[in-house]
């Protein structure tokens, strides 16, 4: 048995190795993400817990417009400890983190940042490994364990589906209703101000507890609200920099009745 590699063999092998590497790199282009296209907008949401009454209409509007399952909502309504005898609620959508753990770890890049900061899902790329469910600190992601063939109970009362249902075997989550934002901007509307261009949950909120807008615009509804009230972001200690802000529940007399916009 000859176990020795001759000089010729080594050179042949090295040549083949180099060729394979070169072809791979040439075919792939630069493996590092390309410089992001820029966007003038930086979308964010503010949820005013002093105004939220926990009616859940935001969740229903979301279920109708995004055609989600009733038992796996993108926007969860959670009841917290009462304050001064009054119930306190926390509606929890995707936080659209600036440093999103799910974007970092998705093995195929199926979840990614848009230039305007929205954390998106590419349902055509997702392989359904569910690593993102382990990585998300906010439990914002749901998985399609089977094909969703059920009737959407929120339709038509709370709206009509505006995006396609996701297939079996992929992860999904809140998208800040990117389709409403994009469609609205194309029509010359401003998300956060014009209802049709604003995420369905914000448009549906009967008490004005949800505010949406552009953080880059100092006069946007979100910028004004954040300038006026102290706000918190969930698990800020993790360094994720969520783009969903909460105005904590305050005493009755502190609530400004006319809202902030």
């Amino acid at each position, binding site marked *: 048995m000859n176990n020795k590699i001759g000089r010729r063999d080594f050179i042949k092998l090295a040549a083949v190795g180099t060729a394979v590497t070169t072809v791979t790199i040439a075919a792939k282009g630069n493996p590092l993400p390309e410089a992001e296209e820029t966007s003038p907008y930086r979308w964010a949401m503010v949820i005013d817990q002093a105004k939220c009454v926990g009616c859940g209409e935001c969740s229903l509007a979301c279920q109708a417009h995004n055609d989600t399952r009733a038992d796996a909502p993108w926007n969860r309504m959670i009841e917290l400890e009462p304050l001064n005898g009054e119930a306190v609620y926390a509606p929890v959508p995707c936080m659209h983190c600036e440093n999103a753990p799910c974007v970092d770890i998705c093995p*195929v890049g199926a979840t990614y940042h848009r230039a305007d900061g929205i954390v998106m899902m590419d349902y055509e790329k997702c392989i359904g*490994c569910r690593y993102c469910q*382990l990585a998300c600190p906010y439990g914002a992601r749901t998985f399609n364990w089977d094909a969703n063939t059920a009737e959407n109970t929120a339709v038509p009362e709370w709206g009509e589906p505006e995006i396609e249902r996701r297939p079996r075997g992929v992860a999904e989550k809140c998208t800040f209703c990117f389709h409403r934002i994009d469609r609205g901007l194309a029509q010359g509307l401003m998300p956060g101000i014009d209802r049709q261009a604003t995420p369905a949950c914000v448009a549906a909120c009967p008490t004005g507890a949800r505010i949406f807008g552009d953080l880059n615009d100092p006069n946007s509804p979100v910028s004004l609200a954040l300038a006026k009230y102290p706000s918190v972001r969930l698990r800020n200690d993790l360094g994720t920099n969520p783009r969903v802000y909460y105005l904590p529940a305050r005493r009755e007399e502190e609530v400004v009745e006319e809202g902030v916009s």
Partner: protein
Amino acid sequence: MNQKIKLHRFAFPVWAAVLALLMVAGLAAAITVFINGLVVTNLTDLVPWGLWIGIDLSAIALSAGAFTLSAAVYLFGWKQLQPLARTAVFVGFLGYTMAMLCLLMDIGRPDRFWHAIAFWNIHSPLWEVTMCVMFYFTVLLLEVLPIVGEASWFKARWPKLSHRLHGIHKYAPVLAIFGLGFSLLHQSSLGATYGVLKARPIWYKPSLAVLFIVSAVIGGLSLTVLSSKLAALFSERANVRDDILDKVSKVIGWMLFGYLYLRFWDTLGMEYTLEPGRTEGLHILTSGALAFNFWIGELLLGILVPAIILVTAKLRREPRLHLLALVLAVGGLVAYRWDTNIVGQMVAFSYLPTQLEPLYTAYKPALVEVLVGLGVIAYGLLAFTLGVRYLNVVDHSTLPEEVVEPAIMQPAVMPTD
């Protein structure tokens, strides 16, 4: 030369039939899953990684004997281990196919298994694992092909192809280099897959990558020696050199002590970080649902007992104790992978400021998961049995006597001679 257990002449057909039956049951369960979706499993949005991931992690870790022994033989010149490396390579090849079968079952879109090649996210440890597993599987395939080519029935039927396949063997040192590189990368990155997740405090630490590679090398060596010994015990077509297995086993014993030190401090040191979610997870491990697994399965039976047996010449050379120690070391590795995967998912820490109680979850695999898992394991056992019978994967007789340095290699007492 080897001690044999005389088997009834129907032993092999019965053994093969039982395994084939388990494989058929597993296939039926797999078809159920493919038809209905993962909804038929007990996995949930809170516990999305279960039994199959546990088997996948264990199979990859227990395959680590292949790269360790290939490196020892072809890079560090430990020639007397060559027949053992041959066994390890075959076991590793089977282990990686088992892991890939489990992953194919586990992902929601098995039709997109190739996406990691086409769509890169170089920041994802799981992407790196996927790429390395594919590259390393290619290496293993190239290492296994000469074994197939050298089989006498293959040589008789396809002499030219046999010669070709045998020719690949001269690249063994190159393959060993690639194997070492890819394995060090992805065996560690499997730990890092968990270790980078800040959302799960009990996982979030750099030491997971170290523990995964160290435990994989130990488990992989243990399984290689164990499968060699079992093959030699039950099959007429397998024979081993007990002096070689004895020496490797002693090394495994000392490595187990090192691993015990790492695992012990790495786990119990977490008590002092007082990090919400981490402390709760630790308590599940040390006094909660996983406490038996941790103290008995991992530390006592999985590390301490086999370590003592394997480093003590008297105990190690008692054939039954030797086998027991190897079985325990393999079981300890499986217990570690299982505990690690599950413990982080049993505590979903609250992200809401006023909810300080963490959310506890539970998971028990469904019958379909168990059947698929058993089917995959049965496939591995059957393939190894056939490998012993028809591919000579456990055969130390080829080793020339003069390669062995008697002073180091020969134990004082050889009970089996």
